[in-house]
């Protein structure tokens, strides 16, 4: 019996150690990212880093202003959601209410494939189609090279769609059927029932889908880097190239050293904080809105 007991004890401590280790990983990541990024933040100053426009890491007195890249990250995320949300919500409604179960399963399989396609392939695809097309047709404009914010937004929209659709479909399916019956009972047709009642009842699920979609998109690196042109500028002309925080890290990391590398880690910290803000807003949405479609 003695041997048996300490075998059980051994495994139960192993279970405990595993979960403790798993939960501390996030902390470990935070520690090391901050550890590497703090020198540049201290040297150049957090305020200047967030709001200064010029990024010249290899100059005599280097400047590590990230504001153009932070803006590019935010703008590309919002614009991609502007495309992904309508398509995502409308197709989710169609899948849950307007098509047969068989068609729905087929399309959901296609959405899962889209979710599974590695971002490097999506970037490659857009590079060889959209970017090439943009240069062929707009090369006469100064500064246009095909690699552009528009191409980046298109890639990010493709990335956001699967996340938004899978979660919206789940939210719509969880809507209490009593609302549907009540609406139909009042002589509303299917479309009115969906858009006036069911979407409202699944509001918190849909908001979670959008926020998760934003989280997925804001952290995208490989696909954006291939198509965005990586020029450090912000412009209302979407055909001009741009550089997001993630692309900045991936482009310059291989040859960066000293303070330059530390500044890249600092842009990683900024990105990390943005992601954490998104996670926290998600938590608030889910807790607050949890009840309305009970």
């Amino acid at each position: 019996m003695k041997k048996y007991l300490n075998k059980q004890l051994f495994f139960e401590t192993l279970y405990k150690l595993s979960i403790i280790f798993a939960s501390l990983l996030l902390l470990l990541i935070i520690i090391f990212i901050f550890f590497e990024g703090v020198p540049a933040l201290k040297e150049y100053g957090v305020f200047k880093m967030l709001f200064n426009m010029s990024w010249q890491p290899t100059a005599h007195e280097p400047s590590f202003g990230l504001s153009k890249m932070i803006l590019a990250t935010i703008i590309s995320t919002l614009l991609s959601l502007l495309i992904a949300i309508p398509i995502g919500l409308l197709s989710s409604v169609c899948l849950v209410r307007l098509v047969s179960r068989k068609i729905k399963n087929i399309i959901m399989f296609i959405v899962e494939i889209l979710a599974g396609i590695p971002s490097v392939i999506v970037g490659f695809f857009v590079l060889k189609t959209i970017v090439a097309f943009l240069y062929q047709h707009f090369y006469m404009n100064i500064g246009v090279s095909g690699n552009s914010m528009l191409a980046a937004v298109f890639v990010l929209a493709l990335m956001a769609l699967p996340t938004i659709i899978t979660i919206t479909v789940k939210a719509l399916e969880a809507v209490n059927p009593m609302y549907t019956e009540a609406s139909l009972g009042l002589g509303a047709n299917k479309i009115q029932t969906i858009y006036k009642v069911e979407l409202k009842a699944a509001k918190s699920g849909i908001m979670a889908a959008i926020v998760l979609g934003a989280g997925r998109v804001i952290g995208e690196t490989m696909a954006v880097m291939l198509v965005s042109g990586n020029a450090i500028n912000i412009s209302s002309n979407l055909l001009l190239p741009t550089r997001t925080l993630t692309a900045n890290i991936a482009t310059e990391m291989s040859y960066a050293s000293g303070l330059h590398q530390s500044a890249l880690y600092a842009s990683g910290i900024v990105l990390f904080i943005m992601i954490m803000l998104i996670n926290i807003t998600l938590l608030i949405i889910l807790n607050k809105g949890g009840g309305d479609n009970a």
Partner: protein
Amino acid sequence: MLNHPWQVKLIKILTYLATILLVLLVFWMVSFIIIQGISYLNMTLLKESSSLIITTLMVVFLALLIALPLGIFSAIYLQVYTNNGKLVKMMRFSIDSLNGVPSIIFGLFALSFFIYYLGLNRSIFSASLIMSIVVLPLIIKNTEEAIKTIDIAQIQGSLALGASRFTTINRVIIPYCIDGIINGVILAIGKIVGETAAIMFVIGSASSIPKSFFEPGSTLATKLYLIIQEPTYSSNGIGSAYGIALILLLIVVLLNLLVKLVNHIFMKRRG
């Protein structure tokens, strides 16, 4: 809005259009890769990318070797040994946030922790370590989902027969949630195969078959990234990029079919 028949008709058309557009987009991308890649999918490409496939399998194997036990044990602890106290909520939040961390941040962490701090060299081993961390939340969540679906009666039945929590785990819980674990594994493989940003700083690059875990290497995805950037340096130029992209795409489709198959089998078993 939606109070007049023409508005209703318009929205209905838009709803169908959105779905068609979604399907067309995916078909356009997939067919583009297939059409361009199919002509390069021949023996020379398979031979040339054999080192990439082997390296990818090595990363998948080692990452899962670490993440699986860690993930399953963590899921068991979360589902069986804890109530929903404050500490558990914290743990859940940190694992969910870990799941939301972008892969470039994992890349930065891998570079500073494994390479600079621990002094490991840029190798398949370092890439596998970071990938085990990347897929850990996936394994935990899927295993937890599976454990949740076990109806309480079965667990209570086993406990009622005098079995300790530990034997209940081995005899009832783990066998029952095999499909959740398999789902987690398949999704994890999908994530590892397609990953570039998390491992690009720590895996180095190589064009021959690696002899050990501690040599630098190139997976299908990292090599694809290099060739896209520098097609002139690969044997048949951009063609091999299309070839590798097609191989990756086939793997993704295969993995998704596998998930469907596993769910189907276990759905029948669960009745």
